[in-house]
């Protein structure tokens, strides 16, 4: 469509400035630790800090746990609904997007009030954290599983494998999952980006995740916090970049706001 290019150019430049200036300001702030120190001082102080690595490891582990839990519960349900019980499809989808209407802080309130004072496995804080992350990732993982199932011929592959004498576990692990791999990667990276910066849930449950570590750093060391913000932006860029390369055009809603 033809139109004057002038306005769109101005709009694009103003938009670009709004999005790039905070990053430049953060970068500039992060290299001004002090006149006596080299400009990379804030970065070395973070990268040599054991609590930085501990928090990063914890968040990575929790993200991995959320993805594994999510896939273990969603893949069989979505697959079976797709293959044999089409009327369940709408229900699986509905339940999977429900976490959108329960904000993270509300979810953690519900979990703590229900299980927090009890005994047993559900009252263990790590279980609550993993469960909450699993719930938060449900919509994203469901979306990628659903995309994957739609992009392959589930029925033909399943029947071929069964006809050749495969058992159901073998169908799942050697036929369905390998075919879902590419689609699942997209959702997986998105969930990692989401959970890497998560703050509300983990701070309420008392965990020193990456998000909590960032906030604590910000309260005492402003320059290190700016460096952390840039590192975290680079991490999100990496994860979302890979996600988009793998899985074009997936719209993302929610996040570690």
């Amino acid at each position, binding site marked *: *469509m033809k139109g004057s290019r002038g306005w769109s150019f101005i709009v694009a430049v103003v938009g670009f400035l709004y999005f790039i200036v905070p990053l430049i300001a953060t970068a500039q702030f992060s290299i001004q630790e002090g006149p006596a120190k080299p400009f990379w001082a804030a970065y070395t102080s973070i990268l040599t800090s054991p609590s930085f690595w501990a928090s990063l490891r914890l968040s990575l582990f929790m993200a991995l746990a959320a993805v594994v839990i999510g896939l273990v519960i969603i893949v069989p349900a979505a697959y079976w609904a797709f293959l044999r019980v089409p009327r369940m499809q709408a229900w699986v989808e509905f339940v999977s997007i429900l976490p959108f209407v329960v904000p993270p802080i509300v979810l953690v309130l519900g979990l703590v009030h229900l299980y927090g004072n009890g005994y047993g496995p559900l009252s263990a804080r790590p279980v609550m954290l993993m469960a909450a992350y699993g719930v938060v990732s449900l919509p994203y993982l469901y979306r990628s599983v659903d995309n994957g199932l739609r992009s392959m011929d589930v029925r033909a592959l399943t029947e071929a494998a069964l006809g050749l004498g495969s058992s159901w576990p073998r169908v799942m692990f050697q036929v369905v999952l390998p075919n879902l791999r590419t689609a699942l990667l997209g959702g997986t990276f998105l969930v990692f980006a989401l959970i890497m910066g998560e703050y509300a849930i983990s701070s309420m449950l008392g965990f020193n995740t990456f998000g909590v570590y960032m906030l604590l750093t910000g309260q005492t060391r402003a320059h290190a916090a700016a460096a952390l913000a840039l590192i975290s932006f680079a991490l*999100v860029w990496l994860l979302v970049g890979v996600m988009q390369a793998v899985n074009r055009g997936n719209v993302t*809603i929610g996040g570690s706001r």
Partner: protein
Amino acid sequence: MTEVAIATKAPRLNRAARIWTMGVWFLPFGLFAVLFLFLPSIGLFVGSLTGGPHGLTLDNFGQLFQSQYLDAYKVSVELSAATAVIGAVVGVVLAWAMVGGGLPRFLRPFFLTFSGVASNFAGIPLAFAFTASLGPVGMVTLFLSHHLGLNLYQSGFSLFGFSGLVITYLYFQIPLMVLLMVPALDNMSRWGEAAMNLGASPWQFWWHIGLPILRLPLLGATLLLFGNSFGAYATAYALTSGMINLVPIVIGQELSGNVVFSPNLADALAVGMILIMITIFAIYLITNRNVVRWQR
């Protein structure tokens, strides 16, 4: 006799077997959803209706009408509405500049990837980035006062209040709008070409074709932006040190035990949030379904 028995028994066995297999495939999903999504939510509803001396009570919801909590809802809704509307308008203009504005093609993938990153860049690091830019000694603040003689903080602006939160939230709201609208606008640019070839002016095109087609997708995307901001906690908490009166922040105060008030009141606050989110989402689903139907 035996034949009859087999004939009547076989289907029943089949049904049992079918239910059993259904159970194997759906049970993990259903159990997880019940334990960690439904029961906690039901618990909040029950909690919000109890806690009084004699069983069921509406006292907790009555307390929501106290000025402090009413104000929290008001500020939360205003913040979400402001960032949703501004984000929607700016996002659509930006997306249209990219799709139909004749900008070089090679910019498009970069633009979309950046939107994906920025819409996911939120929470604590986003708050830091804006403190470094628009905080009292931020780069932009200093630039404006040194070079343009404009002192933001003397003219009443604060990054750590409502207007600061709006500006910060827009950093993830605008890109989300871009991502939501680019597919619809891609279609629109084809319509635009057709209309222009038939001699329509841009104004005629937008008034008679563009807006009527985009009305529902725009409404739907704006609602998603509203929901996206309504539940946000980390960004607001980090920017204001928890000093702004938003519903998520108030709920967080109860959870972290910083402020002593009844857990049942927190439940009621949370139920209020869920009800608002359900309303928003229901309107979205209804309008979205119409969009899908129209496209068929």
